[in-house]
C-alpha cells in the first residue's frame, strides 16, 4: 500500500505550512537571492534576516570561517533597522511563493516588543521568530536566551503585541535548555526553534589571532547535529507546543531524525551554502519515504523515536 502523495503539511500555532521546511534566519536572505537557483514554492517558509530597532553595521571581517563539518559565523546582525526595513525593504518581499517569517532581535525587553509589534503588523509577515541570543544591554549584557527569566520577559512582552504565531529560537549555550523552553512556553510562545548555533572560536596558528573578526561566533552545520537532535528530544518531552528542529540538517535522513525526536517542522540553514537544491530534495525524499512506508503524513513520525524508556531522563552517564 503506497500513498501517491503523502501530506507534508504542518502547523506552528496558527501558521499553516504546505511543507515543513523553514529556511534559517540569516542563511537565506529574503529569498530573492536564492530564487534563481531554488524553487521557493517548494519551501515551507523563509525566516527573514533579523531586524533590530536601530540600524547595525555588523561585525568586522572575517565573519565566516569554515570548520570541520560546519562553519563559524559572526555577522553581527547587520541590518537597516526597523524603520528603513518597513519603509523600503519589506514590500519588495511580497508575492513570494512561500510564507515569510519575520525575525526580531533586540538589546532590551522593550526592543523586542517594539520591533515585534511593528513587524507583525505587516501583511507580508506570516509569523514572527524571536532571536533571543542577544545581550541585554539595558542590564549587564547577559544573553536573553541563556536565562529562563529573561527569555520569559522577552516572550511575554512580544506576545502582548501580536496575535500572529510567535516562535522563540532557543540557544543551546545553556545549562538546561528545557528550563528555558518551559519559560518561553509559559510566556505565550506558539512554537520553539531548537537550536540556534553553538558558540565557538577558531585561531589562526600562523598569526595567533582569532579567525573571526568578532573573536567568537556561532557554529553550525553537521558538526552540531547530534547536539540539536538531543535538544529537540528533551524539549519535546517537556513542552506541548510544536518544535522547529534545526542544526546541521543536510539530507532527508537528517530531517527524519529531527521529526522522530519530536520536531513538527525543520529549518535548513548552512546546507543551503552547499547546494540550494537541498531543501527541495529533502521534501521530495521525505514524501518518498512516507509513501514507501504507507504513512499518510508527518504526524506518523513526529516524536515517534522509540527510546525504550517509558519516561524521559532515565538514561544516565551519557558522557561516559
Amino acid at each position, binding site marked *: 500500500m503506497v500513498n501517491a502523495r503523502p501530506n507534508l503539511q504542518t502547523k506552528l500555532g496558527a501558521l499553516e505550512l504546505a511543507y515543513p521546511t523553514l529556511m534559517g534566519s540569516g542563511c537565506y536572505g529574503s529569498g530573492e537571492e*536564492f530564487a534563481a537557483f531554488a524553487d521557493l514554492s517548494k519551501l515551507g517558509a523563509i525566516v527573514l534576516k533579523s531586524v533590530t530597532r536601530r540600524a547595525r553595521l*555588523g561585525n568586522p*571581517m572575517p565573519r*565566516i570561517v569554515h570548520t570541520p563539518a560546519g*562553519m563559524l559565523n559572526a555577522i553581527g546582525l547587520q541590518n537597516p533597522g526597523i524603520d528603513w526595513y518597513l519603509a523600503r525593504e519589506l514590500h519588495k518581499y511580497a508575492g513570494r511563493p512561500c510564507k515569510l517569517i519575520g525575525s526580531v532581535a533586540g538589546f532590551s525587553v522593550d526592543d523586542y516588543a517594539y520591533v515585534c509589534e511593528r513587524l507583525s503588523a505587516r501583511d507580508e509577515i506570516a509569523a514572527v521568530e524571536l532571536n533571543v541570543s542577544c545581550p541585554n544591554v539595558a542590564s549587564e549584557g547577559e544573553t536573553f536566551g541563556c536565562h529562563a527569566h529573561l527569555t520569559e520577559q522577552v516572550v511575554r512582552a512580544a506576545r502582548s503585541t501580536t496575535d500572529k504565531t510567535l516562535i522563540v529560537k532557543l540557544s543551546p549555550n545553556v545549562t538546561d535548555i528545557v528550563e528555558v523552553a518551559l519559560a518561553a512556553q509559559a510566556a505565550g510562545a506558539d512554537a520553539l526553534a531548537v537550536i540556534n548555533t553553538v558558540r565557538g572560536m577558531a585561531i589562526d596558528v600562523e598569526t595567533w589571532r582569532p579567525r573571526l573578526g568578532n573573536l567568537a561566533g556561532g557554529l553550525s552545520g553537521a558538526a552540531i547535529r547530534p547536539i540539536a537532535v538531543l535538544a529537540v528530544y528533551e524539549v519535546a518531552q517537556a513542552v506541548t507546543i510544536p518544535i522547529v528542529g534545526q542544526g546541521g540538517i543536510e539530507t532527508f535522513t537528517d530531517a527524519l531524525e529531527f521529526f522522530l525526536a519530536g520536531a513538527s517542522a525543520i529549518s535548513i540553514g548552512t546546507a543551503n*551554502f552547499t*547546494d540550494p537544491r537541498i531543501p527541495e530534495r529533502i521534501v521530495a525524499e521525505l514524501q518518498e519515504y512516507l509513501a514507501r512506508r504507507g504513512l499518510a503524513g508527518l504526524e506518523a513520525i513526529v516524536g515517534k523515536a522509540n527510546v525504550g524508556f517509558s519516561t524521559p531522563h532515565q538514561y544516565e552517564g551519557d558522557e561516559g
Partner: protein
Amino acid sequence: MHATTVIQRRVLAPGVIALSLDAAALAQATRPGQYAMVIPPSAQTAATALAIYEAEGKLASILFFTIGRRTHELAELRAGDRLDVIGPLGNGFDVSGSERDVAIVAGGVGIASVFLCAQALLRAGARVRLFYGARTAELLVDAQRFAEAGCKLVEATDDGTRGHRGFVTAALEREPKPEIIYACGPTPMLRAVARVAAELGVRAQLSLEETFGCGIGGCWGCVVPLVGSSAQAPSFPPAADGGSDVVYARICREGPVFWADELRW
C-alpha cells in the same frame, strides 16, 4: 544552476589545476571578472567560489590552487565527471571605459579572474600590460597564454626565479603609468595596488577575495567597508553604530570588483 561535465583536467603547476567544463550556457552568460559557486560532488562541504577563467563557445573553465578540503575534492575530478555549478555570479570588471593603456595586476591564482578581462580589453583595442606575480617561476601559470593573446608581460617572483625579484606591485611602480588598473590577487597585493594607484593618480578596479558563506548575497558573511556614495553601495542607511557614511557591501553580490578609491578597508 548548470549541470556540467569535466572535459579536460590540466595540472598547470604543482597544486594548480584547471578544469574545463562543458557548460555552454555558463560560458555564454559570463562577463569578465565573474565567478561561479562550485557545488561539491560529495555534498560534504560548502560550495566553493571560483573565478570563471575562460569562457568560449561551449567551454567554461575554472582554475584553482589546491589548498583546503574543498579544492582537494575538486582536484580529484577527472574528464567525464559531473560537476554542478551556480553562476555566473557577481559584478565583474567594468571594461567599457575608453582607456587605451591598461595595466592588469595578477597575483598567484588571481590570474584566473583576469583572462577574460584581458581578452575583452585587447579586443576593444587597448594596449594591455600584465603585471604577473607569484612565489616562484613555475607558479606563473599560463603566462604564455596571455602573451599569445597580445598582452605585454611584466613578471615578478618572490624568489627571483623569473622576472623581477620581489612584489609585482614594485614592478608596477617602476613602469610607465597606465590609464587604468585592473587587479586580482591576495589582499595584501590588492592593498598595495590601491596605494600605488592613488600615488599615480590612476583609478583601479580590484577583484577582492574573501571567505564566502552562501556566495549569492543571502548571508552577509563577506563584506567590505565601502563609501556610502559608491554606485555599488547596498541600499542600506549608514548604520547608527558606524558613525560615518561607510557601509558594508557584500563582496559576492555588490562585488567582487570594487573601485579602489571607494573602499575604506
